């Protein structure tokens, strides 16, 4: 830096400061360089390992990536439209690839729901049911885990660990277990997503409860209210907007999660997507991706709007991955 050129003019004390500053800057630089070297080593090691253990090598497969993108293009743009709305295709040769009208779900004699819309609705319903179940159980559990409402330490400890376990337990294992017991379908997906949701929402809820204003609770306590009455009349009205907005956020995540669980056998649009990608039905794949994309954007926007109305513009985006 330019400061070093002035050093001869500095007083004794000034030189001490200067020396000290240099030491600090040097140490800081050392840490930065050390950190960068460590990251570079870790990254190159990781990438080498990933490449070695992959079925296809990165540089061998790279040209095929674009081939694959080319394969994803349908014969004409309207095919996506036809696949999406189950309209008959002019290329229909009796194969699974072009049998769009077969998937129609007739609600009345003439009015039908296209297959992928039905599957998408199924996925959304899985997400909604799981969110509601998670909300219900999380709502009950969170008051038991909050330190300002539950004085018994062992109960709090037990409830918190229980919720942590529900949250950290891989969803895929719960889904796999119930798929084995109940056979393929939406119910295993609901169970798996719900269990994760109870843990995730419960944790967020009890943090909200712990930050609640306790004055109302004290007032009720002074009037002789019991625990349930205190929670219901003093805490719940305060925390409800936050609870709802977290539940909406969770709903967004659950739509994605139930799509993924669907892909491993949990029914809904995820399964349709996995099948059509693996069978290279390009028009169907693109139709599903388009539908999924629009739905996710719509759900995100709707939930952001509702959350904005509930709690004002608070940044809840952070923490969505949990």
């Amino acid at each position, binding site marked *: 830096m330019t400061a070093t050129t002035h050093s001869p003019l500095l007083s004794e004390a000034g030189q001490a400061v200067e020396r000290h500053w240099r030491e600090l800057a040097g140490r800081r630089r050392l840490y930065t360089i050390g950190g960068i070297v460590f990251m570079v080593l870790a990254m190159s090691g990781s990438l080498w390992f990933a490449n070695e253990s992959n079925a296809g090598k990165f540089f061998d497969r790279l040209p095929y990536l674009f081939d694959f993108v080319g394969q994803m293009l349908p014969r004409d743009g309207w095919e996506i439209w036809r696949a999406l709305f189950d309209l008959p295709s002019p290329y229909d040769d009796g194969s699974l690839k072009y049998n769009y009208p077969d998937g129609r779900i007739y609600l009345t004699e003439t009015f039908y729901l296209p297959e992928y819309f039905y599957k998408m609705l199924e996925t959304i*319903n899985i997400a909604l049911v799981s969110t509601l179940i998670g909300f219900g159980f999380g709502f009950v559990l969170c008051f038991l885990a909050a330190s300002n409402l539950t004085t018994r330490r062992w109960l709090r400890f037990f409830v918190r660990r229980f919720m942590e376990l529900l949250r950290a337990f891989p969803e895929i294992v719960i889904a796999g277990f119930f798929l084995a017991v109940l056979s393929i379908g939406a119910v295993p997906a609901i169970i798996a997503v719900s269990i994760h949701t109870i843990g995730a929402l419960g944790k967020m809820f009890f943090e909200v409860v712990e930050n609640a204003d306790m004055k109302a609770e004290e007032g009720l306590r002074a009037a002789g209210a019991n625990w349930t009455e205190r929670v219901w009349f003093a805490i719940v009205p305060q925390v409800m907007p936050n609870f709802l907005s977290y539940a909406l956020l969770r709903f967004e995540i659950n739509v994605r999660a139930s799509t993924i669980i669907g892909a491993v056998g949990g029914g809904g649009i*995820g399964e349709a997507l996995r099948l059509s990608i693996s069978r290279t039905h390009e028009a169907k794949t693109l139709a599903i991706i388009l539908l999924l994309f629009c739905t996710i954007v719509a759900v995100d926007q709707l939930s952001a709007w509702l959350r904005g109305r509930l709690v004002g513009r608070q940044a809840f985006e952070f923490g969505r991955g949990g």
Partner: protein
Amino acid sequence: MTETEASAIVARHTDVFQRPLLERFRAALIIAAVALYMVFAWWLFAVGQVISGGNWDIAGSYLADWVSYEVRPDIEYDGDALDVSFPRFSPLGDDPKPDWVVTETATVERRSATTSAAAGAGSGQTSGAGFLGSLDTKPAAKDDGGFLGAMPSASTPPETPTANTAPAEPVATREEAIVSADVSFGGDTHIRVQPGFVTVTHKGETLELDIEEQIAVNARGPLPDWASQRAPGSKVIARFGFAGRAEIEDDEVKIRRRFLGWENFFFDTRSPYWGMSAGQVLGTILFGDRIEEGRSNLAVAWDNIVNNADWQHGDVWLKLLQTIVMAFAGTVFASLLAFPLAFAAARNIMPNRFINHLLKRSFDFLRSVDMLIWALFFTRAFGPGPLAGISAIFFTDTGTFGKLYSEALENIDDKQREGVRSVGAAPSSVQRYGVVPQVLPVFLSQSLYFWESNTRSATIIGAVGAGGIGLKLWEAMRTNQDWENVAYMVLLILMVVFVFDNISNMLRQRLIGRQ
């Protein structure tokens, strides 16, 4: 308070005491609506039907498999004698002689033709599972004259399944054979098998069964509530809770005895260390003679653990490392790419509105096309493995980070930038000294948070083909027999998530301080 005072308060605060009907019953209405929706969902997904159609018996045994293992000897009736056999890959190794199966031998006359019929009639075992695995004419090295003392004398085995092809001549031979087997299930639970007659004792009750070979199983007296029979004469299933169960059929008794624990966790049955206690293993490694030429005992032990056939430790660890690498590399790449892009997308830093919008919409696109879609897409492109996972996480998180970073950039304090600019710094220096110090801790903390949550996501997308422990987990679950391996992998995943959670929390607290 008098009544007039109370009514005065009510009159003054009508908005509190006389709320509109809708508002008063809002909570009840919402709850009713949710309940109605749940009924609808119950109907839509046919929940009742699915749950009642579920195989809950199997669910119990799958759950028990998480922490225990079964040993499955079959006792076949063979004329006047019995055959005790274990499946080939029994957790007790080849030729097991467990002390809970007590057999008595006697000299019997038997005809070889009947045995081939009995062997042929064996129920749905996979071919090559070796019914008579225990009779594989082992050299008498293990001969201890113990419970199956008749075994060595069976060097002319009655009939192996391979001999079925030869036309069986009814030749009568006299030999030592098992005439009675007593299987203990711990406690007072016993099964005593004799040709034509089986006694089951459990909870102080005794069930006596007459066996007409190949024809029927008939109980003497009523069945206790722990035993069941679908139709008269068909097989009787006796359930002893966790200890296991027994199926008494008209041609054999299938024993399923369950033991708590993970069997052969370190050494499989082919390892020279198999069956040793921890002290013995340590002793052999430190002081024992070399088991194999050219390799130390420690190397042999390590090799046997890593290549354990039941638990596949080496492969599981490798797959777990793949998952960790997927999350790590994906997150780092996404952060690196999102960092410069976020500057271009932030309105207060890049004045060009068109570029702002273009970048923000592409972030939204990357984020909204789900990680699953990216994972399926890249699995097709790169083949199954961590490359697909890295790419999927990279694409999704570039969108997420771009959005989060550019929002953080738009919320910075402008004074620092003005200060740096006012001394005449170049635009790049303004960003470096005026902006980056403010946002870097936030950026890093967000990346760390997602690194940890991506470790979890990487497990899930692994199952659709993106490699790592997710795929391994999924394969283990699909077989429906390796639930103890699933439990092991879940435990490893939980440990990794726990450790990463703590590391990420610790680093974040050091970066941004305790909130």
